[in-house]
């Protein structure tokens, strides 16, 4: 089973000096944090805020590369969580065939936002992740923590 989720926002995690992208399902009942690097966070932030930089950034180039050959991103799926590393798959339509490509979730999300493709998460991933711990972590956050990145 997979659940569709949306990008709720980005946060900076000062303890790990990393960024967290927060995914949330439609009913707002499930939440999934994914720790990502700074360049990927900047890229997701640009897409969320609909900012077109003067030159194509890496994921804009990635999208242009697929557009050039008429390949379309159908969906991305966060498939597995293994020792705090998340795995994702990007589903593409090219010609009459569907292709599946292994990816980091950060690249998959950055590309999905630019392609207006849905983001799904395997339910096993949502279950695996300790929600109590996360809830507590999130309760301590202030609204301004969801603010913009200074990229």
């Amino acid at each position: 089973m997979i659940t569709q989720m949306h990008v709720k926002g980005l946060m900076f995690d000062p303890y790990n000096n990393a960024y967290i992208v927060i995914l949330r399902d439609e009913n707002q009942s499930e939440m999934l944090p994914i720790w990502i690097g700074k360049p990927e966070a900047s890229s997701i932030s640009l897409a969320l805020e609909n900012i077109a930089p003067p030159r194509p950034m890496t994921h804009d180039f990635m999208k242009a590369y697929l557009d050039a050959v008429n390949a379309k991103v159908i969906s991305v799926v966060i498939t597995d969580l293994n020792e705090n590393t998340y795995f994702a798959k990007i589903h593409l339509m090219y010609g009459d065939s569907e292709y599946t490509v292994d990816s980091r979730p950060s690249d998959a999300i950055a590309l999905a936002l630019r392609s207006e493709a849905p983001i799904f998460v395997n339910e096993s991933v949502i279950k695996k992740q300790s929600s109590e711990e996360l809830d507590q972590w999130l309760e301590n956050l202030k609204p301004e923590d969801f603010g913009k990145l200074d990229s």
Partner: protein
Amino acid sequence: MPEPTIESAGPLLQLSVDRVVDDATTDTRIAVLSRTDVPTEHLMIWVGASEGEAIRRALDVSVTPRPMSHDLIKNFGDHLGITMTQVVLTDVKNNTYFATVYVQSNGVTRTIDARPSDAIALALRCHAPIYVTQDVWKRRSGQNLEAWLSKVESKNFGTQEV
């Protein structure tokens, strides 16, 4: 095969990527390229830290546990049967270089506008040649940067003294 040309502006010059240098003062990287036929003549392009590291990983042939962004683009090509045929540095305006990536699928060639950093990071992974137009080569900045660069590099080595 004839030498690749762009709008008859003379034959393109082939470049190879020498190394990536840290510009510690600005947290950027400098990609140092040289002419394949005259390896002592260089072209330097300032790139972002993450793009510079992507180029460096390709030069070092280092493999990461998970595919990084440019590995993913290469994997798209491998899965879909798209070949990257060449990269051309086509223009420079106010020290910003412009690149065009050439890809081929089902016998048709298509071009994609790119930053040189992405184009180079992908070209190294796909073993595609990198070219520069004669016009851009003539207008490149940093023809006298060799001395400056060696200073930067020695400074980086000497940071522990401070």
